[in-house]
Structures are given as structure tokens and as C-alpha cells.
């Protein structure tokens, strides 16, 4: 079944520049929430979403509707941009640690949201899989394509992430059982 965003992308490839705005309206929330849940950095998430759409404009003819949904294509671009940016930041921080911007998490010590902390504490590879699977209803094949990993690896990472989250939230689990 062809989704609305895919139709708009085809229209955009055929020269309808207004269709890009429609794709942006439809997919911006999903892209932003994925990046934000991954990084918990609002400015970085905005930058990545904007860069993803700049890239889409530059490479609009690289997308082939037969190969997958535009949503997966945009998530793939966003994930690659994100990993590049995080790696660059890590290098930058190792050279000049005192120049690293303070993230909002460091400023907000009263934050009590344990599920957020549990997700952020997962290794990046597991975090991406669980976020795409649970919050974005993606199939194993789509996740495999976005993260450029085999389908079997998606399954094993998903299983490990679920187990890790259960361990991280163990206190909550015991509390809910005792109630």
C-alpha cells in the first residue's frame, strides 16, 4: 500500500516543490522524536531533522519508491547524520573537554523520568533498534535497512535491549508486582 508521504515524494521527484512541505509536515514529528529519544538533546535533534531534509533536497532522485518507503529512507539519512555528528562531537570533546556544551540533562537534576534514563543508558545500537521498533512501528527488515545491519542482528539487539530495560527498571517492576 502506498502511503501519503510516498505519494508526495513521487510528486516532489516529478517537480512539485510544494510536496516537500507536505513530506516535512508528515514526517518531521517522527524523525524528531526518534532523534530526541536517542540523544535527549533538543538542539541536536532539530539540526539533524533540518539537515535530513536538506539532504533529501540535494539527493531527491536517489530515492527509488520500489526499494522502500520514504519514511525509512529519511530515517536512514537521519541516523547516518546523527552517528557522524556524535562521533565528531566525541573527538572534539577528547581534544577540548571544557568546550563541550552542557546538555539539558546535566542542568536538570530533579528529572525523575526513569524510562528516559533507562533508554539513554542502553548502548546506542540497541537504543536505535528499540526506538524504531516500538515507537515507529517498523518491521525488522526496515530497521535492518535503516541501520545497515542484518535482520538477525536486529532481532538479537531487540531481545537484548528488552532484557536490559527490564533490568534497568527492575525496581519499578517489583513495585508494580507488590501492589
Amino acid at each position: 500500500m502506498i502511503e501519503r508521504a510516498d505519494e508526495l515524494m513521487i510528486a516532489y521527484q516529478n517537480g512539485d516543490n510544494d510536496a516537500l512541505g507536505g513530506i516535512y509536515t508528515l514526517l518531521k514529528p517522527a524523525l524528531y522524536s526518534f532523534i530526541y529519544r536517542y540523544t535527549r538533546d533538543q538542539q541536536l535533534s532539530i539540526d539533524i531533522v533540518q539537515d535530513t531534509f536538506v539532504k533529501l533536497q540535494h539527493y531527491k532522485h536517489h530515492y527509488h519508491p520500489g526499494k522502500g518507503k520514504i519514511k525509512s529512507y529519511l530515517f536512514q539519512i537521519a541516523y547516518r547524520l546523527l552517528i557522524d555528528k556524535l562521533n565528531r562531537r566525541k573527538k572534539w570533546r577528547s581534544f577540548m573537554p571544557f568546550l563541550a556544551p552542557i546538555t539539558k540533562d546535566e542542568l536538570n537534576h530533579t528529572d525523575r523520568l526513569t524510562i528516559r534514563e533507562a533508554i539513554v543508558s542502553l548502548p546506542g545500537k540497541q537504543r536505535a533498534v528499540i526506538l524504531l521498533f516500538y515507537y515507529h512501528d517498523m518491521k525488522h527488515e526496515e530497521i535492518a535497512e535503516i541501520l545497515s545491519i542484518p535482520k538477525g542482528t536486529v532481532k538479537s539487539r531487540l531481545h537484548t535491549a528488552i532484557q536490559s530495560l527490564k533490568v534497568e527498571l527492575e525496581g519499578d517492576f517489583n513495585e508494580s508486582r507488590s501492589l
Partner: protein
Amino acid sequence: MNHDPFKKELHLRKKLDEYHVEIPDFQMKPKGKRWERLINFLASPAKDPIEPLISTAAGVAVLKLAPLMGMAAISIIQLFFFL
């Protein structure tokens, strides 16, 4: 076929469902505004590099003595070279 690994994880699902993200209002980026990002990066708050030093009395003493020690070291090096 995709087996749903969350099927039996009711509590985990409940917890994950609690995690909502507020989407800020921002537009698609016009091309060629990289310098704005650089300015944002330079203007963002950063950690104070000498904070660990000024938080203890010994640290403050080190901070005060460091220039004197440095001067002394440079003088000694000069003595070795020029005398």
C-alpha cells in the same frame, strides 16, 4: 513474519508508553546557514575549566602559585641556556 517481543511485556510497554516527546515548532532549514549553527555552538553554555581548582582551598592555592612556579621554571631554563 515479525513476532512481537513486547506481547508479554505489559509493564515495559506501559513504561515505554509514558515517554512522550514534545515536538518544538521549527521550520525546514534554508540552505547556507551553517554559520548560524557555529554561532549557536560558540554561544552555548560550557563547563568552567578551572571549576575543580576553585572549589577547594588547595586548588585556589595551586592557582595562585602556578604563575609563580611557571616564572621560576622559565627563569631557571634561561639560566641554563645563557649562563
